[in-house]
């Protein structure tokens, strides 16, 4: 049980840090929008980076730029959603309710959100490469623990684990109805 408490504590800290970062990003976005009269994107071709900035540092925002901002926004939303569902599942586990449909559905949602996040991240990278950096590349990032392949594996694992819990629920019910 202590490991579940520790896991929940770590996920909760991560979740709230993520929320604060997301709010900070939104606040920065709104600040630039109101103080500078709009937002812009700063393209660093040498580093291969595209960053949100004040409009005077970049070209005028077009539909393609808003498309990129939307993809970035969705990336943040799906990552936070995945961590939110993980946190909810571990909260239920702490209350000794491991074999529960809420745990199963939350783990499944966490897995699906992670996969969507990963696909969105790949799409975002592809969009950036094609639209801003002028080259085409599709591939998995194998560089570390935040690599897209690792997040895909984690997402699939959570979906599989949710099915294991679902099977556990039916076995538990069967056991309880054995007189």
């Amino acid at each position, binding site marked *: 049980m202590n490991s579940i408490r520790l896991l929940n504590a770590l996920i909760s800290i991560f979740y709230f840090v993520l929320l604060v970062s997301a709010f900070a990003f939104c606040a920065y976005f709104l600040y630039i929008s109101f103080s500078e009269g709009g937002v812009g994107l700063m393209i660093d071709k040498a580093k291969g980076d595209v960053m949100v900035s004040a409009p005077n540092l970049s070209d005028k925002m077009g539909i393609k730029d808003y498309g990129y901002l939307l993809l970035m926004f969705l990336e943040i939303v799906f990552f936070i959603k995945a961590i939110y569902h993980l946190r909810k599942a571990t909260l239920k586990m702490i209350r000794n309710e491991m074999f529960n449909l809420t745990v199963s559905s939350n783990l499944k949602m966490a897995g699906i959100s992670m996969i969507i996040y990963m696909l969105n991240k790949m799409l975002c990278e592809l969009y950036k490469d094609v639209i801003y950096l002028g080259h085409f590349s599709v591939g998995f990032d194998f560089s570390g623990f935040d690599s897209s392949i690792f997040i895909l594996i984690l997402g699939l694992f959570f979906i599989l684990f949710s099915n294991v819990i679902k099977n556990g629920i039916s076995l538990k*019910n*069967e056991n309880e*109805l*054995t*007189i």
Partner: protein
Amino acid sequence: MGISINLDSLLMLRNMKSKELADRIGITTANLSILKTGKAKAIRFSTLEAICKVLDCQPGDILEYVDDPNP
């Protein structure tokens, strides 16, 4: 379900109450009710043995296979 439980008729024949049977075989009345209404998924040999001993019957007197057209 294809298996039906004939506990009610046996209890009536033995003039015994459900609570008495539950007490004598060592299960709760709630579990006996689950068994009687056919909601149970399985029955342990030990429970079946206890019921047979108390009601002085054979397992076949308690359990009956009924052909279910919609399983």
